[in-house]
């Protein structure tokens, strides 16, 4: 076990930034801390680094309790959001800084910096100052500087926040490759769920107020969101307010099996766009709908249907499937929903006769 947090809380004045968080990171893992702003993820990262001290709880690195160990002695590599390169030093001196502090021999420092320059493909830039570098180069210098002294863990705060969108995609792949080659335990903070899903081995998801929601592999949190918050935050999901009547949860004409739920129970039910099956054969599937709009996202298309009851539904398919079905806006289709999850439950039952009121837009997560 490389890093472990036990019941860690952090308060700034009266504001709770991190609330009783426990999780552990395995040696060599690439972990993402994901959450909206105000989720306390950066504070968690800074507490692991020792830049913030927990109000309560313990932080362990390689089995050693770190609460009273200063930043300097934790042997961590930290990459700041805006890189925080030493602007009065050249690239060479920036990377060599940590080695000089650790009293490496001059020749060793030279070798190590050369090695880092080569690894990060920034040879030839060693005499430049930070302001003479592009955003991507700065980031690589910052990571090289953090990794040069061979830290036990690499911590990155929003590593791709400050580079433009086109470079970002490629840097993600690069980080995965780098992690694969060096195999150093890495934790990075991001608010971009796509980035977390794509890059990490595991994801820790935070909600505002520093509350941990779920820990799991990308596939796990995507397919089995632990609760409504995670479902809404990760990927796109159709989320419906339903009410149980005679063992069936209903929203409009949609029906979901809910055998063990008493009448009147309110359930939030969610399903991914790919769980919606579409046919132009109006008798094949149970629900009738009209294709309202098609959004082109490259290879994938996003489709918005409207059920006979007025409920909107979101689906995805490839261009080929779309062409095969011969779909077009305004076309009538039949639908079915393959699988779904119960995300939240409110058992304070209302009388079963209560009229169902559907409120369309806010119930469908919009996260593309």
């Amino acid at each position, binding site marked *: 076990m490389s890093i472990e947090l036990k019941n860690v809380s952090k308060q700034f004045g009266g504001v709770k930034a991190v609330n009783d968080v426990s999780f552990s990171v395995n040696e060599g893992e690439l972990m993402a801390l994901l959450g909206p702003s105000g989720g306390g993820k950066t504070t968690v990262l800074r507490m692991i680094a020792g830049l913030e001290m927990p109000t309560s709880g313990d932080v362990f690195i390689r089995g050693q309790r770190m609460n009273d160990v200063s930043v*300097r002695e934790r042997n961590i590599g930290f990459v700041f959001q805006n890189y925080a390169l030493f602007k*009065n030093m050249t690239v060479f001196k920036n990377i060599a800084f940590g080695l000089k*502090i650790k009293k490496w021999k001059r020749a060793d420092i030279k070798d190590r910096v050369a090695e880092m320059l080569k690894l990060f*493909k*920034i040879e030839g830039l060693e005499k430049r100052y930070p302001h*003479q570098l592009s955003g991507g180069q700065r980031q690589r210098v910052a990571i090289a500087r953090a990794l040069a*002294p061979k830290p036990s863990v690499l911590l990155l705060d929003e590593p791709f926040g400050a580079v433009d969108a086109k470079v970002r995609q*490629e840097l993600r*792949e690069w980080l995965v490759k780098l992690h694969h080659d060096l195999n150093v335990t890495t934790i990075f903070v991001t608010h971009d769920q796509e980035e977390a899903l794509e890059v990490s081995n595991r994801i820790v998801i935070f909600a505002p107020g520093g509350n941990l929601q779920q820990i799991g592999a990308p596939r796990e949190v995507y397919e089995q969101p632990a609760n409504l918050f995670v479902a809404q935050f990760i990927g796109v999901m159709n989320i419906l307010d339903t009410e149980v009547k005679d063992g069936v949860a209903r929203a409009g004409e949609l029906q979901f099996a809910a055998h063990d739920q008493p009448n009147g129970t309110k359930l939030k039910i969610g399903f991914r766009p790919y769980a919606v099956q579409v046919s132009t054969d109006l008798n094949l599937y149970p629900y009738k709908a009209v294709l309202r709009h098609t959004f082109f996202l490259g290879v994938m298309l996003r489709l918005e249907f409207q059920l006979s009851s007025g409920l909107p539904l979101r689906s995805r398919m490839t261009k080929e499937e779309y062409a095969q079905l011969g779909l077009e806006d305004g076309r009538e289709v039949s639908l079915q929903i393959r699988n779904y999850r119960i995300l939240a439950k409110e058992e304070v039952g209302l009388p079963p006769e209560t009229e169902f009121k559907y409120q369309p837009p806010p119930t469908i997560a919009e996260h593309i």
Partner: protein
Amino acid sequence: MAGTVKRKNGDSHRQSRRGTEEKPFVKWILISVALAFCLVFLLLPLVNVFAQAFGLGWKAYLNALRDPNSWSAIRLTLIVAAIAVPLNTIFGICAAWAIAKFNFRGKSLLITLIDLPFSVSPVVAGLMFVVLFGMNGFFGPWLENHPLHLFGKVIELKIIYAVPGIVLATMFVTFPFVARELIPVMQATGTEQEQAALTLGASGWTTFWHVTLPSVKWGLIYGIILCNARAMGEFGAVSVVSGSIVGQTETMPLWIQSLNNGNTQAATAAAFAVASLLALLALVTLGFKTLLEWKQAREYQRAQEAPLPPIPQSDTAFLSKMS
């Protein structure tokens, strides 16, 4: 008809181009007023100082400076500056650091206090020290009754009408310069670079020496130069605490005043001779300041225009080669 249209277009073009500028004659009037003011109130008196100083010839000028009392005043001024400037530099860095890098209660009070010497009349500042350390002041009698015993000698620590008082008064008056120059620079730099140094294992001292100080270098030097100029030129506060004992507690500005009161032609010339040194200091300070600004601009310019070595790969081309 076509002609008028054309002219109209031309006018509107000119107007839009200079939409933010004043009419030429306003510009020239403002420039001439500023220039005339500088000429009459700054340049003319300065030239006059040197003219008067050399009025009785080179020999008289050198003799005036070689006079033991003049020499003692010059030496005292240098000593006072040599103590006050480094101390104020250290205090200034501490104060600026505290204000720029930490959040604490009473921060705005501290900022106000740093500015206090600017808003208090130097004479009042001097009087404050007389009230504190003078014979009839708070600590005066106590100091008189408690002489220091050092190396077997008994030393009576005299502050007012002695060098320590002059140093104190000078330090009070020149306190804000370094801090005032540093605070905005430090605030702009933020604390991330220092945090980065910490995560790399650097001690507080190493961080200060290798990261903080280089990034505020120009502001610091500028503050020190201004502080020094004021320390050497201060009259009001120093005159109250010095007691003007000729050859002992007279700094250059005080000595110039005494000489000028002499009312003989030779004394006046001598006064101007010493004054010329202070004027020279002002010019040197000004020169340094200009040089600094120029160097700073050039360093920046150079960094901008430096021919960059060829980059081995573009930002992301290396990705394909890695996999």
